[in-house]
């Protein structure tokens, strides 16, 4: 059996098993994520050694059948998912979970793997359906009225996004007569094809929480339980961003109109998210708004990169996605631990005297460094590649905006980091230092991973340089 088949099917099998044997759900989840990580490693080695791999499902070649395409970009996304999923599984095993977490999480993993490998527009839509529905369930996991409300809004927004995507796919079928990814380049050649692409992109913007369609997201990400927030923020929104990047690659030069829109909306999101993060009073809300800003940054990176078939600037976007996934997952996990220790997550109450900053605060600080993009993190490498390319093109205004976004992210993240280092009388009555748990390992490990990724950036870059299939 090939790695590709197992990558997409093992999580679903694990999901059904976790329902059938709820008592063993956590260990089943661990086995599944570990196996998933091993499969990804083996796939990456194969891709580096022999180039992009393809697998024709059922022996029916596209466009009749569906083809899995495992190229460098897909491999980097799979690896990102595998790393984050290990940490999330470790964290979830150490916290008493609610029934329903494991099947939903495994289904999310399977949907993400299927999404990154799929070479067919309609199949991508179905994968998005699983992803969106599972994400709604994960948001509702907390069970509080606020979480249920946020989950319902998420469901509505997600359905609107799905309908737009489906409409776009139906239109592209009427324009080109086929629904595999090869159709994208044909779509860019006619104006009604571009309308179809624009509808798909609008749906993706809802799902990725791209400004100004991000309205559902801060509430959903901040009212979920910490593992679910980490998962939603680090991985689920990446599905839509990945597809935007894929459309930009498949469309080539003709997709420039999409890239311009992404650049403009991305800038808006970067600034608006940062502004809201600066004003947020709760820690989880700050992190959620920072996700809006970082998604804006990634969209901006996809948008200004130009034709991916001509130059390699788009790798910056992929690197930024990777580093954001690791850092943001670490940050949400750390925030969960901080809130648990203090009994609240008000930013004004973060300073304390008796409780010295612990592992969670440390993990938050490292993750913040990576999100801001200080060397030697992967975030730095991504921004470096981008700015270097923009300098060559003389696009000074984009560089200025990028630097402004970076400065703003440093500003809002330092609100938290500086408070944690400051003493003060605001220790709440219930505050207590939590015993060392595997949850700290997860957050710290991810944050360290984000840091080290900058030093080992050669690995993802080698993968990304593998020519497309």
């Amino acid at each position, binding site marked *: *059996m*090939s790695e*590709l*088949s*197992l990558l997409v*099917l093992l999580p*679903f*099998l694990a*999901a*059904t*098993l976790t*329902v*059938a044997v709820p008592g063993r759900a956590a260990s089943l989840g661990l086995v599944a994520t570990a196996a998933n990580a091993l499969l990804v490693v083996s796939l990456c080695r194969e891709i580096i050694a022999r180039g992009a791999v393809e*697998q*024709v*499902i*059922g*022996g*029916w070649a596209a*466009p*009749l*059948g*569906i083809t899995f395409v495992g190229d460098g970009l897909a491999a980097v996304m799979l690896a990102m998912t595998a790393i984050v999923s290990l940490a999330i599984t470790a964290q979830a095993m150490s916290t008493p979970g*609610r*029934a*329903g977490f494991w*099947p*939903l999480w495994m*289904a999310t993993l*399977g*949907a993400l793997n*299927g999404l990154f490998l799929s070479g067919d527009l*309609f*199949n991508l839509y*179905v*994968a998005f*359906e*699983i992803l969106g*529905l*599972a994400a*709604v*369930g994960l948001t*509702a*996991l907390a*069970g509080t009225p606020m979480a*249920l409300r946020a*989950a319902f809004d998420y469901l509505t927004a997600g359905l609107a996004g799905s309908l737009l995507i489906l*409409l776009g796919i139906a*239109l592209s*079928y*009427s*324009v*080109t*007569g*086929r629904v595999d990814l090869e159709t994208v380049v*044909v779509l860019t050649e006619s104006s*009604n094809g571009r*309308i*179809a692409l624009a*509808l798909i992109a609008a749906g993706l913007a809802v799902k990725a929480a791209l400004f100004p369609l991000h309205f559902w997201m801060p509430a959903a990400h901040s009212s979920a339980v910490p593992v679910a927030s980490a998962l939603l923020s680090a991985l689920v929104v990446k599905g839509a961003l990945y597809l935007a990047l894929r459309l930009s690659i498949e469309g080539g030069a003709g997709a420039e109109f999409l890239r311009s829109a992404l650049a403009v909306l991305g800038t808006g999101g970067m600034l608006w998210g940062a502004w809201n993060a600066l004003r947020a009073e709760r820690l989880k809300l700050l992190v959620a708004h920072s996700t809006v800003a970082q998604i804006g940054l990634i969209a901006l990176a996809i948008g200004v990169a130009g034709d991916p078939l001509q130059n390699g600037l788009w790798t910056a976007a992929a690197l930024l996605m990777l580093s954001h996934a690791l850092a943001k997952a670490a940050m949400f996990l750390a925030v969960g631990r901080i809130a648990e220790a203090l009994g609240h997550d008000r930013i004004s109450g973060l300073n304390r005297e008796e409780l010295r900053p612990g592992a969670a605060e440390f993990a938050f600080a490292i993750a913040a460094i990576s999100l801001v993009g200080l060397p030697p993190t992967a975030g730095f490498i991504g921004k470096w590649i981008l700015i270097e390319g923009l300098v060559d093109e003389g696009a000074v205004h984009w560089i200025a905006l990028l630097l402004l976004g970076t400065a703003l992210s440093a500003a809002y993240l330092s609100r938290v980091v500086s408070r944690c280092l400051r003493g003060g009388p605001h220790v709440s009555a219930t505050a207590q230092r939590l015993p060392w748990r595997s949850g700290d390992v997860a957050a710290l490990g991810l944050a360290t991973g984000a840091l080290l990724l900058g030093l080992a950036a050669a690995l993802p870059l080698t993968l990304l340089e593998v020519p497309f299939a």
Partner: protein
Amino acid sequence: MLPVFDVVLAAAILVSAALALWVRDRIAAVSGFLVTGLLVSLSWLRLGAPDVALAEAAIGAGLTGALLLRSAHRIPCAPSKALPPSLWCAAGALAIAISGAIVWTVTSFGAAPVYPSLVADNLPESGAQNPVTAVLLNFRAWDTLLEIAVLFVALTVVIMVAPARPRTAPLGPLVQPFARVLLPLTVLIGGHLLWQGGHAPGGAFQAGAVLAGGAIALGLSGVIGSKLTRQNGLALLAIAGLAIFALAALAAEVLTGALLGYPAGEAKTWIIAIESALTLSIAATLFLLFFGPAERH
């Protein structure tokens, strides 16, 4: 003659949809939705898509309508807030812009679809004479597998967020004989639809929906409600569909080297086996979506 019928049908769909949207009473709105669903399934028939018509009638109008009715009954009425006019105008403008773009795109020249000829050419090897079944269970079986996963996730979410199930009072002495007549008939019709799917409109989704309808009637009448839904066996049956489909996909790869690539000449057997499992699983899923999860002990 025929265009007149189609025009009346299209107008009726619009009117009933508008009724469902604007009527104030909830039950009336759901009734409007039901009527819209039935008319839409008629329009699928007119468009030459009997498979879609069947699915729309059974799932879109029938089971969704039943679910909505139940929810309309259970959820307390929220005070209706009037939308500000600016929002109305913005929503209207957006809807008109999107519809305009769609109309323009659809009416302007497009390429001929590549699928009909491809499907027709490969139909003999697919193990099914009905092109829709060939696409769903062979050419693009991967899509179908993911759709079964969607059902699985939906059921998981419902089980997770559903409140404790309120006790359903049995619907009275006349309903039990009704359900007893109905259930064998639904088994018959479901089996027929499943078998017929190989060469004519039908298949696992339609058959599963019909079965679920019969089971729901039986559940509402109070015959099986307390006995069957309290056990986890039904939930296991519901999730078995995804597991069996996934295992079959991997087994096919072991045998032929292609994921979901059925061994030559045996495609029909594989398709019928997978579809039979899916029918039972879909029926159990829909039943549980309606009645909620088994009670926890």
